[in-house]
């Protein structure tokens, strides 16, 4: 299986230079995306078979990379699962791009990097030594950066690319330090050696912190998330989908690999760090999202939120593992992994939707959209499914993973340590809050974009998107529903992963009555997506049938009633900003120091009244702005050394000499 995966990666790597050569041909787009789709599909199947068959790990050593070491590659349950996630996203993205890519203005800036990006992500997942891992990791950042820069004439994109790559290499350096720590002074770089080394508690703790910084900055943990909402929207939509839905998962993989696999047994306080960060990330992410009216940026911020949810699961797993409650750990871990999968599904779906809207209208700003459900009904329907899924509403998949996380939280009172006793329920509250806010946010996003009346000509002129894109979205939507109603099968598929890393796995779900899922015991809690789905459809159709049959089915179109204020102007609709106003009032005043000021002209004055909203990104102002300021301050100060005179430079030399001689004199 590993060889197949590697071959597919190789094909993709070869495809990249080919794309450079072909870039200007008309058929290049179809060719590149077509081949990428096939390659990813094949390696998807390979990884899936490995995962489902719960096969034993496979190793390969290639004579490249660090010379005396070679490049170690390994396919175990964990990497297999993540390869499934990656390749599923990549496959659908390529399918989507078959249609979407035609509208690309500068294909030669995307085509060469796209397959390389996919290959890099796959290689990160199979890497089994520090060098190969970091090489692929940073290569992944580099290629995605190149695609972020593809529309480089827009200054924001250039800035986004800058922040992105700097943050990326910051993260890579942190991981590099982590591995340096685990590898020790004489450079035992293979993961096998690291596992064997059993690092001491201090080493493990440092490694955890560094891994949190490294992987966290890639995954978008608050406060390392700043690059994410800038970079993800800047790229072409199918790439945004990959970066948001899939690349962040590679970061999660990195965290899991280091903390659960390499860093030795966890200490109980690790989970406190992770949970605190994760809770903050969850709520901050969704609150940021609520304040956006750029569709793709809103989605990017939701990625931050979902990463938070995933890390909550991981943090709980750490806590349980540290206290030897392996069963609960397995539950939390599985919940996290399931959410990884789910999020990759609906986030890609939503970004595809955003891409379709972008091509149809040329707009990303929701305030200029509206009423698209009339013009692109299929897209609207598929996106609606995505919205319901990401809002964690039954019977779709988003709810299942959050439900499992809640179940894990309900197990945590048995945890002995006090810090956790207080932290975990609060994190649970944050999670619930985030879920509710997410629903609110997607009511806003969907309502303003697809419902109501078109706010601009562009929105009026929109047309349904092409069939490739629709197909890609349909696949994902179908999967969202499938995971929602038959979660048991997917949970069982995750069993080998959790038993490999936790040493325990959730009870087998297939065979529970009516395909329901029972995390602990039937008397304790259970959920049956299938039954709920069937019930809802039944009762809904029943009601419809009854009313239409027994009462009336007559219908008349008329102007909107609106309490008798008939106003044709679509400007009177609620905009995204106004929709978010109540929540902004409630949360924004603290979190964003939101200020609203109304200029109301005096009676008789015909000027329109104006409402100004002022938001502060406190995290940026508190952390990043000072860093930037400090750097430029230091740069300015040091820059004086460029303008010294020869004599002054000589003085420098002289002083150095004297200092060194003094050192000698004192040395003896």
């Amino acid at each position, binding site marked *: 299986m590993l060889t197949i995966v590697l071959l597919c990666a190789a094909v993709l790597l070869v495809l990249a230079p080919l794309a450079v050569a072909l870039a200007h041909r008309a058929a290049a787009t179809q060719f590149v995306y077509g081949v990428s789709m096939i390659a990813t599909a094949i390696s998807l199947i390979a990884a899936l078979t490995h995962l489902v068959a719960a096969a034993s790990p496979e190793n390969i050593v290639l004579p490249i*990379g660090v010379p005396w070491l070679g490049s170690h590659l390994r396919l175990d349950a964990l990497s297999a699962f993540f390869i499934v996630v990656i390749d599923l996203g990549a496959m659908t993205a390529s399918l989507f791009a078959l249609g979407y890519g035609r509208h690309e203005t500068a294909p030669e800036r995307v085509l060469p990097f796209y397959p390389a990006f996919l290959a890099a992500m796959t290689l990160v997942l199979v890497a089994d030594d520090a060098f190969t891992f970091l090489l692929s990791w940073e*290569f992944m950042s580099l290629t995605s950066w190149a695609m972020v820069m593809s529309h480089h*004439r827009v200054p924001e994109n*250039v800035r986004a690319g800058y922040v992105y790559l700097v943050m990326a290499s910051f993260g890579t350096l942190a991981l590099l330090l982590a591995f340096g720590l685990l590898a020790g002074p004489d*450079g035992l770089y293979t993961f096998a050696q690291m596992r064997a080394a059993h690092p001491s508690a201090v080493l493990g703790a440092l490694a955890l912190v560094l891994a949190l910084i490294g992987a966290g900055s890639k995954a978008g943990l608050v406060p390392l998330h700043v690059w994410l909402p800038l970079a993800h929207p800047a790229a072409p939509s199918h790439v945004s989908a990959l970066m948001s839905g899939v690349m962040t998962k590679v970061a999660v993989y990195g965290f899991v690999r280091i903390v659960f696999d390499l860093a030795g047994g966890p200490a109980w306080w690790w989970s406190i760090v992770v949970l605190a960060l994760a809770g903050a990330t969850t709520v901050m992410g969704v609150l940021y999202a609520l304040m956006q009216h750029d569709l793709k940026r809103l989605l990017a911020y939701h990625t931050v939120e979902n990463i938070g949810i995933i890390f909550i699961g991981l943090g709980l797993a750490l806590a349980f593992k540290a206290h030897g409650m392996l069963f609960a750990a397995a539950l939390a871990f599985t919940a996290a992994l399931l959410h990884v999968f789910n999020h990759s599904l609906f986030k890609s779906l939503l970004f595809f939707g955003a891409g379709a809207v972008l091509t149809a209208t040329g707009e990303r700003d929701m305030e200029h959209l509206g009423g698209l459900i009339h013009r692109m009904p299929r897209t609207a329907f598929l996106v609606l499914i995505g919205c319901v899924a990401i809002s964690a509403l039954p019977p779709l998949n988003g709810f299942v993973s959050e439900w499992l996380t809640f179940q894990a939280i309900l197990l945590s009172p048995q945890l002995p340590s006090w810090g956790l006793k207080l932290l975990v329920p609060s994190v649970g509250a944050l999670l619930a809050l985030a879920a509710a806010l997410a629903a609110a946010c997607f009511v806003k996003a969907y309502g303003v974009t697809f419902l109501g009346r078109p706010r601009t000509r562009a929105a009026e002129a929109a047309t349904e998107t092409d069939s490739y894109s629709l197909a890609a979205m349909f696949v994902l939507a179908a999967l969202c529903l499938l995971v929602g109603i038959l979660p048991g099968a997917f949970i069982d598929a995750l069993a080998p992963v959790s038993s490999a890393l936790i040493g325990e796995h959730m009870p087998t779900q297939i065979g529970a009555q009516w395909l329901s899922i029972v995390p602990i015991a039937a008397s304790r809690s259970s959920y049956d997506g299938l039954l709920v789905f069937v019930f809802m459809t039944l009762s809904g159709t029943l009601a419809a049938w009854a009313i239409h049959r027994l009462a009336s089915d007559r219908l008349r179109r008329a102007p909107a009633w609106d309490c008798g204020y008939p106003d044709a102007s679509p400007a009177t609709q609620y905009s995204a900003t106004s929709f978010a106003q109540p929540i902004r009032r409630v949360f924004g005043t603290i979190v964003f120091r939101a200020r609203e000021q109304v200029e109301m002209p005096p009676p008789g004055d015909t000027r329109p009244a104006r409402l100004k909203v002022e938001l502060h990104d406190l995290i940026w102002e508190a952390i990043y702005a000072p860093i930037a300021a400090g750097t430029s301050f230091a*740069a300015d100060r040091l820059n004086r050394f460029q303008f*010294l005179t020869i004599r002054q430079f000589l003085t420098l030399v002289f002083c150095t000499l004297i200092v060194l001689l003094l050192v000698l004199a004192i040395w003896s």
Partner: protein
Amino acid sequence: MTLDGMAMNALLGVLVIPAVAAVLLAALPNYRATARLNVVATTLTLVCALSLFFAKPAPGSYFLVDDLNNTFIVLTTFVGWTTSIFSASYIGHELEIGRLTPRSVRFYHAMYQVLMFAMNLALIANNIGLMWVAIELATLTTVMMVGIYRTHEALEAAWKYFILGSVGIALALFGTILVYMAARPVVGEGLNAMVWSVLVTRASAFDPALLDVAFVFLLLGYGTKVGLAPLHAWLPDAHAEGPTPISAVLSGLLLNVALYALLRFKMLLAVNTAALAPGPLMVALGLLSLVFAAFMLYRRRDIKRLFAYSSIEHMGIITFAFGMGGPLANFAGLLHMTMHSLTKSAIFFAVGHVAQVKGTQRISDMSGLTETNPVLGWGLILGVAAIAGLPPLGIFMSEFLVVSSTFARAPLLALVLVFGILVAFGALLLRLNSIAFGEPRGAVGKTQASYVPMFAHLALVLAAGIYMPPALVAWFQNVAGLLG
């Protein structure tokens, strides 16, 4: 003819060919011919240098070839070769636009060969006095070439280089004398007391105090040539104002040669246990240069000066690596040195063409290069990615080894190192973005650029980043062992 004899010939060839070529080039008037001859000469030199791999002559009292300087000789001759190819097209353009006169071009070519001669001499010299002479010769020739444009800035830069260089010369000489003094009681008077291969065998018996002082002076003297802060002042201006091929050679080779000299003496001290460990000094200067240069990168407006400072930064990293010592760090240092020479010269090739296309070196006047000159633009991006240590290019591997091996031994140093690298990366990327991307600005003329050298270098760097041939590895490891 015996193998040894062949080796001896090769050895002499490395010296004689440039010397002869220098004389010829000084004599020949025709530009095309001289340019070709220049390339031919460097090619022959390269061949001789390569043949040294297969047979090394026995060390004499003046010349020595071991794995250490073999690495450097091959690197030097190779970069010298590619640079001569590049300079053919570059100088041609300079002639057309009349920045250079035929006379100055003759002078330039002659000097180019003299420089090659001097550097090769410095590398194969077994006699520390000879080594000193050679390095000074190299310095003076580069001074000449930096001033070749006769513009006010060029003269200013040359003058600054000259004065600071001379002081460096003096300090280095004092150090050399001290080493002799240290050696004399043990080795005995006369030539032997200056023959490195003899010294290194007997160094354990030398007077440690003398060695200490000597090393301080050598560190400052040759460190000035390496461009370590705070002795770096000549370097940016010399790079910026001279002709680009010379900037490439300066960054790619001369700095290495000076560092090579330092390494030789470091090995001497390493043998003598009583002497102070040279490591800490080198580590300190290295980190200082790294961090200082990293911040200096932010305020650069001149593209060549920008990359000159990046050279300082990387010299800092290399010095740091050698200062740390140990098989991993030394290996990394050697690798980094090689990669930096190739990459930086490639970057300067690109920069030279960019400056010719845009007709300026001011960063603010060039923008959207990937639109106007895609090949050049992406080449530059690749080069900067390489120099910034992004995978899958070679410097990534060396930085990986340095940082990871250091962190386990001296965490704080590693943190400083990482900090410097990150700061520098931010600055480079900032400039790169404004040069390669955004709305195209500045002239969009085409140039008859010779992209071959640039992409040849980058290809090598890429290859080394992914796969290193075992021979090279064994050889590096051997040298790393020598460095202790």
